[in-house]
């Protein structure tokens, strides 16, 4: 009977025993109080037994602390089968002497009480089990079952009080589970005896969806998170979702991650989204929200970054098939381990559980890019949806994870409802729409906002075809922006008009040329006439001069002949 090596430990700081339950140790700043009993209570089916079992299994596997599971309700075999849904190999732990499972079964119908008794037998059994493997952890599940077995509750209460005291003396960390009673934490009020740490588990149904919640009601000698924390149970055991204190203290990285769509990059002044920002892609059904998100994933994977895609609408294989039709081949990235797709139906869990699961995946996979497709799949009270998203966004921003959320908007309530509620959480908002004109629908894109960078104010048409998403050069004409056939029509009309104008101008040109030619011809003629005139004039002049000369000559000859001269 080893005693009190740990007993005086609480004089300094309270020592804690880590439970290994994801999230719970954070809330309680280290786990359950070491060497003391803690009470875990809640209604039937809220996960008390699993909580207790996780505490033991994790203790044995992760912290080298063997444990005793004393079950007052389930048989050992049933218990092993029941937790078989988790990855817990209880038989293996028992074989390795890391765990003892003792089923305490008392059938009140075969018991007659005559005279005084105590529960020393329970102490002996527990003591023996503890000693046989050197247990540091003990679970009593659910000890209140004893109240239906023994008539003398006064004795029972005294013995329980003694039991918890005894457990403390032994220095084992104990978890005592208790079924919740009316107005009390436990049906028989054993919280009176186990008062160092009380944890309340709860299982609430809202809109046919169950959400499990955990709350630390009391923790003597230690501070702890006081909120209700959602938790869930799956094959990895229990996961508690610690609500981040909505901190707005994350870094704001400067670098840019391209969107994966050439045209969209150009619409954003910096050529992409900021790393760690949250991007919202909203649109009607069939506007290609998923394709937009997947294009971003594709681009991220090309850069060698890890991506996590939460799909709430399509199964992984369907998603991959559909995306390969638009030239987004993501299969190889999954094989390389760069991309992970988590497909779940949104109605499978409550919001909180979704959040918790996503949280766990994010912690585990450490992605640089996350896509949630779509957030409109989350049903629930508006405020709750908002709170959930807020926490998710905070979580992602703290880790500098760039996230693309898609959201299905409905034709009538576009930019209302959910969109408006979450708009404040989003850094970049790309709105996709589909416009009916001339018997066809055309897809349009608009960057509604992009915090921290300039962006195009244009509504752009885009096509989704076998090569992916392609933004069409915008047609901006006198009649506004046109799309689809109207755009083609208008372009054709414009072309025709252009041709006509050209013809007319050519004609006019030709006319001008003609009249100029005529003028020039006239000018030439006149010039020729002038030349002829000038020639004539010159000839006349010449004749005249020669006449004068010859007159002169003849006069001189005459004179010479008369001998007047010399």
């Amino acid at each position, binding site marked *: *009977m080893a005693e009190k090596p740990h007993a005086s430990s609480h004089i300094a700081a309270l020592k804690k025993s880590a439970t290994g339950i994801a999230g719970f140790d954070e809330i309680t700043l280290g786990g359950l109080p070491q060497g003391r009993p803690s009470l875990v209570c809640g209604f039937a089916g809220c996960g008390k037994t699993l909580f207790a079992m996780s505490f033991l299994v994790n203790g044995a596997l992760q912290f080298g602390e063997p444990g005793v599971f004393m079950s007052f309700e389930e048989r050992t075999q049933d218990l092993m089968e029941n937790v078989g849904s988790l990855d817990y190999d209880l038989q293996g732990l028992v074989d390795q002497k890391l765990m003892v499972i*003792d089923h*305490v*079964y*008392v059938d009140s119908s*075969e*018991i*007659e*009480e*005559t*005279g*005084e*008794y*105590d*529960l*020393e*037998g*329970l*102490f*002996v*059994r527990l*003591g*023996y089990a503890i000693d046989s493997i050197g247990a540091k952890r003990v679970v009593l599940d659910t000890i209140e079952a*004893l109240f239906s*077995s*023994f008539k003398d509750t006064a004795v029972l209460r*005294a013995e329980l009080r*003694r039991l918890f005291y005894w457990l403390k003396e032994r220095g084992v960390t104990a978890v005592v589970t208790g079924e919740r009673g009316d107005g009390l934490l436990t049906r028989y009020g054993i919280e009176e005896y186990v008062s160092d740490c009380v944890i309340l588990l709860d299982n609430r149904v809202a809109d046919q969806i169950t959400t499990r919640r955990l709350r630390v009601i009391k923790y003597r000698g230690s501070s702890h998170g006081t909120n209700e924390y959602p938790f869930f149970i799956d094959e990895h055991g229990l996961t508690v979702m610690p609500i981040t204190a909505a901190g707005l203290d994350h870094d704001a990285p400067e670098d840019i991650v391209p969107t994966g769509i050439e045209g969209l990059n150009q619409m954003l002044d910096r050529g992409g989204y900021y790393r760690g920002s949250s991007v919202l892609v909203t649109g009607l059904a069939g506007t290609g929200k998923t394709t937009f998100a997947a294009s971003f994933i594709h681009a991220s994977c090309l850069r060698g970054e890890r991506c996590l895609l939460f799909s709430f609408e399509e199964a992984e294989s369907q998603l991959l098939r559909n995306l390969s039709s638009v030239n987004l081949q993501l299969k190889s990235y999954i094989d390389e381990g760069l991309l992970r797709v988590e497909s779940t139906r949104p109605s499978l869990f409550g919001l909180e559980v979704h959040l918790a699961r996503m949280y766990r995946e994010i912690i585990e996979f450490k992605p640089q890019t996350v896509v949630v497709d779509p957030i409109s799949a989350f049903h629930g009270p508006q405020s709750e949806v908002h709170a959930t998203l807020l926490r998710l966004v905070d979580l992602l921003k703290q880790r500098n994870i760039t996230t693309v959320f898609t959201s299905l908007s409905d034709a009538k309530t576009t930019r209302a409802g959910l969109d408006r509620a979450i708009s404040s959480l989003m850094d970049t908002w790309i709105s996709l729409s589909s416009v009916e004109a001339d018997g066809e629908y055309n897809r349009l894109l608009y960057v509604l906002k992009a915090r921290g960078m300039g962006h195009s104010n244009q509504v752009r048409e885009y096509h989704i075809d076998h090569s992916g998403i392609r933004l069409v050069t915008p047609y901006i004409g006198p009649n506004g922006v046109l799309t689809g056939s109207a755009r083609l029509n208008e372009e054709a009309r414009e072309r025709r008009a252009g041709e006509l104008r050209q013809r007319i101008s050519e004609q006019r040109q030709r006319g001008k040329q003609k009249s100029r030619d005529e003028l020039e011809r006239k000018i030439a003629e006149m010039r020729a006439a002038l030349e002829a005139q000038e020639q004539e004039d010159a000839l006349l002049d010449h004749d005249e001069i020669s006449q004068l000369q010859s007159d002169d000559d003849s006069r001189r000859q005459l004179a010479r002949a008369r001998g007047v001269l010399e």
Partner: protein
Amino acid sequence: MTTTDVHDPDTHTVSGTATTPAIDPSAVGQPGHYALRLYIAGQTPKSVTALRNLQRICEEYLSGVYSIEVIDLRVTPQLAAGDQILALPTLVRHLPTPLVKIIGDLSNTDKVLVGLDIRPEPAN
């Protein structure tokens, strides 16, 4: 004597069988035979009272057709699980079937007789 348990781990000196009649192997399994087992933990006032009461009742009503095995869980704690012992002292009637448990110091003889399903006629 209602002192709640004297918690003394070092009194392993008790051996119940020394003070009880040995089980007669030939008698076990015979019709009408009572195979009884009394679980105690050390020589507490309650265990002593229980054993004394049991012996008295058996001699009175079951003379010759009973065997008592006293198991001290201080000595052999591993035996507690077998008969699902929680309360001490516990008297277990293995035979005749069905299994019956009587807890307490057996001070109420009538209840013990009812519990063990013994008709008072044979001896009285």
